[in-house]
């Protein structure tokens, strides 16, 4: 059975290493400050006992004040999982660092989030639209995208 690790416990572990990096934590998952996202992700991937080498999914949700990008991480070796989130504010040009350098599976998924939400991922090698055509204007999955 894949053990869903408690967000609070991992948050305490991360706080010791990277102070002030956790915004919020709960048993279901933890929210990381966007400045520390790459370092925390790298720590989660390489730390012994955690070993999150498999990125199950990345999604984004539009809560009107902020965008929240959700990372579902899994460890194949220990068979446990964790939910990490990061928030970015502002509707004009929200951006987050890209985790493609750690998990290549993020490649197409981040392009899709850019396409449908407009979130810019810094450091992504090929950030262009993937499911919509190149000249499309707007980002459809935003809550304020009016179709007609």
């Amino acid at each position, binding site marked *: 059975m894949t053990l869903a690790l408690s967000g609070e416990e991992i948050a305490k572990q991360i706080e010791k290493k990277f102070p002030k990096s956790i915004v919020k934590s709960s048993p279901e998952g933890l929210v990381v400050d966007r400045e520390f996202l790459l370092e925390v992700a790298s720590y989660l991937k390489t730390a012994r006992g955690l070993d999150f080498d498999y990125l199950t999914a990345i999604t984004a949700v539009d809560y009107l004040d902020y965008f929240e990008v959700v990372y579902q991480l899994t460890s194949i070796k220990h068979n446990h999982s964790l939910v990490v989130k990061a928030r970015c504010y502002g509707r004009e040009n929200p951006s987050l660092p890209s985790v493609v350098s750690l998990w290549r599976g993020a*490649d197409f998924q981040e392009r899709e989030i850019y396409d449908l939400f407009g979130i810019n991922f810094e450091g992504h090698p090929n950030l262009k639209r993937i499911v919509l055509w190149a000249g499309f204007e707007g980002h459809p999955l935003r809550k304020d995208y009016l179709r007609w």
Partner: protein
Amino acid sequence: MVIKTEPFVVNFGPAHPSTHGVFRMRMTLDGEVIVDMEPVFGYLHRGIEKLAEERTYTGCIPLTDRLDYTASMTNNFAYVLAVERLAGITVPERAEYIRVIMAELQRIASHLIAVGTFLNDCGAFMTPVLYMLREREKILDLFDMVSGQRLTYNYMRVGGVSQDIPEEFIPALKKFVKEMPGWIDEYDRLLKENEILLARTKGVGILPKELAINISASGPVLRASGVKRDIRRADPYSIYDRFEFDIPTGTAGDCYDRYRVRIEEMRQSVRILKQAMEQLPKGKVRSDVPHLTHPPVGEAYGHIEAPRGELGFYLVSDNSIAPYRFHVRAPTLINLTALRDMMVGWKVADAIIIFGSIDICVAEVDR
């Protein structure tokens, strides 16, 4: 004097006989060798995730049918599992067993298409496809009995299944389960040791183990590369912990291993079907929940082992009758991340085979 040669760009365009759906590959060729490749898709994007935000939770079930239309039952299964996790609903025993039977039958049907079209791409001119489609017709007859549909079933509901199985279903299923291993052996015998097939698929399009984990591959693609991860064992959902089955894995991660893994998985599915049929209890097929599901505020991620990989649904609820966010973790989209790495250096003829062995369904890639 050296003749100057330069690579040229060919488009394996959206309309092509053997890209499984509308999928475009821009290849840069040097003679017959592929030097560079870029996949372009999005030709079948219908905005399912946005459409789902305006439909009720039950009304989204037909949308999930159209995601990977060759494996509708498992799509339904993953979605209702996620909603039940979100709303905290339990499912009666009989419904669980019926769901498992449908999911395993669907796995066999989907793998028949996958293996048949893969062999067709290798050039065996339709003979394997037609034999396998003959078996798939029997499965489609079973599904027709249950839901009245042959392709997009819309059968599972939040809290169970939509209706009970008719009386003629179990005898027909018994007959199918008795004959199917013989048919699988026949396909195996025809082509397993064929020299030409071995020469064309062994060692072709290798996906190494570390790369497979790094790109979040799942399903037969991951297992053929040597990683023994199957959601039915690693994170058992529904009642899969009551059944005995093996998880076939490959060693080399080439096209031949992916083909073998799928054939072996069909055998294991027949095994699960036999056990599920014997243990099928009586009872209700749907728990007493209101038709309009009204889950509390929260989020849930529910995933299953679909024939093509790990299909997951991420749902966010804001206590209304429609999902606030409906996201599909499409296994085939993520499996395609390594396509360029697998193809560069091989020839045009291999490109089609490598692409066919990943077994995509463009409706799921684009959603």
